[in-house]
């Protein structure tokens, strides 16, 4: 066991875990942030996507010992009030089915929109292909990303976001 002081959603958190523990389980079991989901444990499904210093990463493939003081953002910290344009669009268009993959989908989509506020279909396909949705809610997710881009452009943006 080793102690690690982490920056998670803007807060400093200390955990005492085995060095090879993936951030997925640090978040879920040690810090009680269960929005980040376990789907495969091998970086294939994308359900555990978080941001590390603003870039999307698979939490199941990110050992706690490698994180250092990097800023970790999880779905719980994507916006201060749950009103990120993507979160608004997802609720407005009723995107989630079972919803289990959606934390990861939203984290991947958030970094896409940050890089490209008006992504093309091809860009959306390429970026989102790393996240599988077992319910196949792809039709509405694609519409949701476009709707979020509109909301952001019209000024309904996540002004208080941490990133």
């Amino acid at each position: 066991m080793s102690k690690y002081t982490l920056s998670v959603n803007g807060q400093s958190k200390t955990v005492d875990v085995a060095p090879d523990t993936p951030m997925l389980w640090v978040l879920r079991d040690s810090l009680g942030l269960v929005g980040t989901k376990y789907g495969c444990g091998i970086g294939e499904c994308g359900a555990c996507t978080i941001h590390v210093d603003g870039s999307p990463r698979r939490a199941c493939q990110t050992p706690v010992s490698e994180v250092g003081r990097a800023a970790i953002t999880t779905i719980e910290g994507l916006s201060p009030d749950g009103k990120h344009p993507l979160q608004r669009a997802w609720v407005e268009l009723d995107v989630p089915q079972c919803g289990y993959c959606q934390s990861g989908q939203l984290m991947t989509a958030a970094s896409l929109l940050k890089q490209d506020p008006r992504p093309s279909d091809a860009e959306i396909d390429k970026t989102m292909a790393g996240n599988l949705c077992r319910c196949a809610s792809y039709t509405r997710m694609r519409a949701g990303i476009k709707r979020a881009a509109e909301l952001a452009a019209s000024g309904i943006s996540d002004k208080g976001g941490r990133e």
Partner: protein
Amino acid sequence: MKPLRKSSPPAVDRREFIKVSALAGGGLLFGAYLRFGESVAYAESAPIAETFAPNVFISIAPNGAVSIIAPNSEMGQGIKTGLPMIVAEELDVAWEDVTIVQGDLNSAYGRQASVGSGSTVGNYTPLRRAGATARAMLVAAAAQTWGVPESECTTERSAVIHAASKRRARYGDLVAKAATLTPPENAPLKDPKDFKLLGTRVPGVDNQKVVTGAPLFGIDVKLPGMLFATYTKCPVFGGKPKSANLDEVKSRLGVRDAFILDGIETLTPGVAIVADTTWNAFSATDALKVQWDEGPVAAQSSAEMARQADQLAKATPPAPLPAGAKAVEAAYHYPFLAHATLEPQNCTAVFKNGVMEMWTPTQIPASGQGLVTRGLGLAPKDVIVHITRLGGGFGRRGSNEFSIEAAAIAKRLEGTPVKLMWKREHDFGHDNYRSNGWHYFTAGLDGGGKVVALHDAFVKMQGGPGDMSAGGFPFIAIPGSQVQSSKLPPGIPTGFWRAPGDNGNVWATQCFVDELAHAAGRDPVAFTLDLISAVPAPNPAAGGRGFDPAKMTTVLKLATEKAGWGSPRPRGEGLGFAITHTNNAYVAIVADVSVTRDGQLTVKKLTAAVDAGTIINLSAAEAQVQGAMIDGIGAAWFQKVTIEHGAAAQTNFDEYPMLRMNHAPKLVEVHFIKSVAPPTGLGEPGLPAAAPAVCNAIFAATGKRVRTLPIVDMDLKWA
């Protein structure tokens, strides 16, 4: 423990669950409010004063807040929103006044099994009655208060109105009076034409929690002092552990215990590892070495099954075709499929003071309870089952192995809560798979291109759903047609996979009908419409569940019209269609595909027409059909579980690819037929016709017939 909130309506705080411990018609509601995952064993219970609770589903507080129980398991099909909508419609309550509370397993709720697309079908009338009864009591309370006839009172948005005297009373103001009344026997139901809420688009009640990562799912349950467990079974089905390196496992970081479980009637023997974190349990599981007694199933393989299927089919040859008929023959095969719910199987349990309390993502909570009572010798009253949200169901969580596994471990750890978590590899390795299947079709066409004979030698695994009979389309359209069904020896566990039976058999039969149309030199739509019209009108004795040719004709005409059927396409592009009558819904799907010369398939557009009776929630209904179609296509395109040495060869998503955004069709249209008939199922009917529509479109585009799934195994190159 959190203090109990008295007289405080649940609408104030949607983050909380209400635990109903005693309810009776017209009586008081007793309850304790619990945060997600809190234990009822620790909670106090006290009456919530002055709440009107005319039945187990509804309570209305004096401030007007309405609480409606959602009795069934939410797994993405929208049932936690849809069933309370039915109550709210008849209650005539404003939707924004409603708080939805997930029900625990409780026989008072009626049909809590969420399988067979039956949650809405089975609960529609009871929930309408529950709402209508409460409404009638509120009307009576108002009428008595005002001294006017009930017949002069109407209701609207949580209020009773007496138009003649321009009086209006909010439901909340009527609860004290209503609670003193006796529920009427036969409160009138609305005419479906007057529905205001049903048929509209209502977003899922937990969407905000989903998009903010709030705890909802079984995997999210956390109890004070909880430990984490894995349970490893023999990779070969039916095998059991003889011995394991338990001392070595127990010496690993964070491991609290490790033991073999055997001799419990409802439990597959295996090795339990209990640790302080999920990761330490997983790491110790990777270090586990077991001597297995593999048993006889080790001799089974997919290759051997294919050989046996061929032999079995040859033993049931067709009768000679009528003289002069042209023979059309084709063999179709679909493989085993895994459910691969994205949330792996899990269950949390604590055994304390003789009571097993469980938090279970299950489609059939009563079945999980049954496994625990039988396996551990507990009375049903001592096995409490809380239903969590499910990270996907698809039929997988109709079986409840995880319930008895968690309970058996919890019993051993008496007093300590434990969460059993399957690794993804456990999940792929111990599914109840969609059975593989083989169809050997022989048909005869007369000189006019009419089908005069149809024979299907069908083979599947013994056990589980998915058997074939000549009672479905197209067999019922062809007098004298025959299905002869043979079974492979048991051993590989098979079970209910979204649209059981139809998910493979409709693919095979609908592709073969398309082959027949082409062999007859006819347009496949006209050919199929002729077949449909040859089906006798349904027998009223079938209770409205028999194949109705008029309904099928309507959806096929609508889907093909919307999709532009008949417009010429260049080589490499094509339209295909298929139909299905599944869970009594009528579905026609047209697929628009392109295949490049080097064989790259793109499904560009799907167009569905659906008659599912009354639509409860248009948003959820549309999402179910969209998702089911793409699910069906993804399974047919990419997925296959192969059995080698009596075990599943695929262990994770790298070996079992699933359709992702880049392969999802850009355009997906769903057209519902307007109907006031009772609702049919809708979680499954969108699936079966999607894959055959795509395969028939591939034929139209390339001239190549896909007769073995998955499609990805076939070379679609054309020149």
